[in-house]
């Protein structure tokens, strides 16, 4: 178990910065998700921690020890790759033994460790098979097994579930989380999937354009996003962004309708938030409700998507569009005037 500390880490492949001024402290035993769209630098950040890439600047420390110039093999971190990267010419047992053999552990100890890990992951009957004779889910498990058998300082996951189908992904999500609870090892998990980040992580690091946008617990990021990127990235269906004007009385006016009010500021009012200012109003689809004609804002129903648990209702509010999620089962029909 380890702490991982990044200070002012940057990376540039020659075509402009991929990572800029990354400061991050990953605590002992914590499960941290690096989340962002593809190309945001999250995988590069993970590879910097792993030692597979060298940082352009800044410092990386594991348990306080500067590791900028330490080879991957000497960092004692285990990594689960998106492609699983199983050694195709070795059996499952040999795949899982590889790291222990590198360390020249006694054969009896290797056998014991591999069999314990295999039992934990339900791989016992597959130990003598080659990777090509395994299904996608089984390969994923072997990749996990190869990591846990070593009892490393920390686990690094590079989008490990993105090659699995939806059902298997949900199951593995649960199993990885459970493994983390059992082993209590520091874990860094890269994903572009906000559901994975939300459900698995103790803390989420939202990355965009090579920079950290926000760090915090999943619910904190969801409830109080630091910027439009974080607000729009978390949540499905995503947050509605509407062009609004701030009225002198604190009302937020969209298409001539008052949709919300700015709460009285607890501290100093943010700069620029003055009456008449054009602002972006973010509304979560599930926090909107359908109501009676006498009490609400009129909009037109454009499209209804049933999701099973509820419906996503696409609304037209003047020239602007927004979505609403409702658990109610009412049969909303297209073009029904809604008031």
């Amino acid at each position, binding site marked *: 178990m380890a702490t991982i500390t990044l200070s002012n880490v940057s990376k540039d492949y020659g075509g402009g910065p991929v990572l800029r001024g990354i400061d991050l402290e990953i605590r002992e035993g914590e499960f941290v998700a690096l989340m962002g769209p593809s190309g945001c630098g999250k995988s590069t950040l993970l590879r910097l921690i*792993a*030692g*597979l890439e060298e940082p352009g600047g800044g410092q990386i420390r594991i348990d306080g020890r500067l590791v900028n110039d330490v*080879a*991957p*093999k000497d960092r004692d*971190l*285990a*990594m689960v*790759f998106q*492609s699983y*990267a*199983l*050694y*195709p*010419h070795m059996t499952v047992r040999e795949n899982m033994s*590889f*790291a222990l053999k*590198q*360390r020249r552990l006694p054969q009896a100890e290797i056998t014991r460790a591999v069999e314990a890990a295999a039992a934990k992951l339900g791989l016992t009957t597959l130990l003598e098979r080659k990777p090509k004779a395994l299904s996608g889910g089984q390969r994923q498990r072997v990749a996990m097994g*190869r990591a846990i058998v*070593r009892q490393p300082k920390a686990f*690094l996951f590079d989008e490990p579930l993105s090659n699995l189908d939806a059902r298997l992904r949900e199951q593995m999500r649960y199993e990885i989380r459970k493994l983390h609870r059992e082993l209590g090892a520091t874990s860094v998990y890269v994903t572009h999937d906000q559901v994975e980040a939300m459900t698995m992580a103790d803390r989420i690091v939202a990355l965009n354009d090579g920079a950290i946008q926000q760090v915090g617990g999943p619910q904190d990021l969801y409830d109080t996003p630091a910027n439009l990127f974080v607000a729009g990235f978390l949540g499905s269906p995503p947050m509605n962004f509407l062009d609004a004007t701030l009225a002198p009385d604190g009302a937020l006016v969209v298409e001539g309708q008052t949709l919300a009010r700015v709460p009285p500021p607890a501290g100093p009012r943010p700069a620029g938030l003055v009456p008449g200012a054009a602002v972006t109003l973010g509304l979560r689809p599930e926090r909107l409700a359908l109501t009676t004609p006498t009490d609400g804002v009129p909009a037109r129903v454009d499209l209804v998507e049933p999701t099973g648990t509820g419906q996503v209702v696409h609304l037209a509010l003047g020239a602007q569009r927004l979505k609403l999620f409702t658990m109610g089962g009412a049969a909303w029909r297209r073009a029904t005037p809604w008031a």
Partner: protein
Amino acid sequence: MSKTLSRTLLPRLLHALALAAFVAFALFPLFWLLKVSLTPDDLMYGEGVRLWPSRVTLDHYGAVLRHSQFPLFFRNSLIVSTATGLLATAAASAAGYAFSRFRFPGKAWVVGVMLISQMFPLVIIVAPIFRLLAPLGLTNSLTGLVVVYTAFNTPFAAFLMQSFFEAIPKDLEEAAMMDGATRFQALRRVILPLTLPGLAATGGFVFTAAWSELLFSLMLNSSAAVSTFPAGLLGFVSKFSVDFGQMMAAGVLALLPVGAFFLLIQRYLVQGLTAGAVKG
């Protein structure tokens, strides 16, 4: 029914015929080689052009093995080709791995120069090569041939090996390095076993190239003691006659090791060349 049958049958038949014609065309010289090597001297010209002589004999083989210097040439060829195959494959693997995995200054230049080295007709550089090797005592020597063959075969072999390495995901050696291996250990324990088909294909290619090379062998080595068999074969051509029977028998014998070698690596070769072709 018969209509669809003829529609699928006819193209298949033509396909098979075309292939058969090609195979016959390609293998006929080999058949002729064998036929002439087995034809007794007195029937060589007496029977006219026949597909098979009325009587066969192994006399030519006996003569070649017992009374000619062919066994010596054969041994020389084996030494030169094996050494060239090993050296060029080793150098090409190292270069191919570096080309496929590392970015280093001057990489484009190295690749470019290696490509250029493949563009000259060899005849042009025979004289300068001779001039270079003579003071080093490398003419009239097997070592000289190995050096020259290795130098000329390594560039193409390196590009071949590069395409094999590129077909192997980088993730694999990164996984090995995370698992506690140095880059070299990852190469040896994970990448190399997966490149065996590529190594076999490259080794086979270089071995064959060295085995059948005539120009340098003829120009650099004049003494029979260090002749390889392609140069040695010319010895069967004398001023007044050509001993076709013995020459062909020597040719058949020279084919054996190459044939055996390819039979051995055939499976890897197809696998290797296609993998390289798809990904390269």
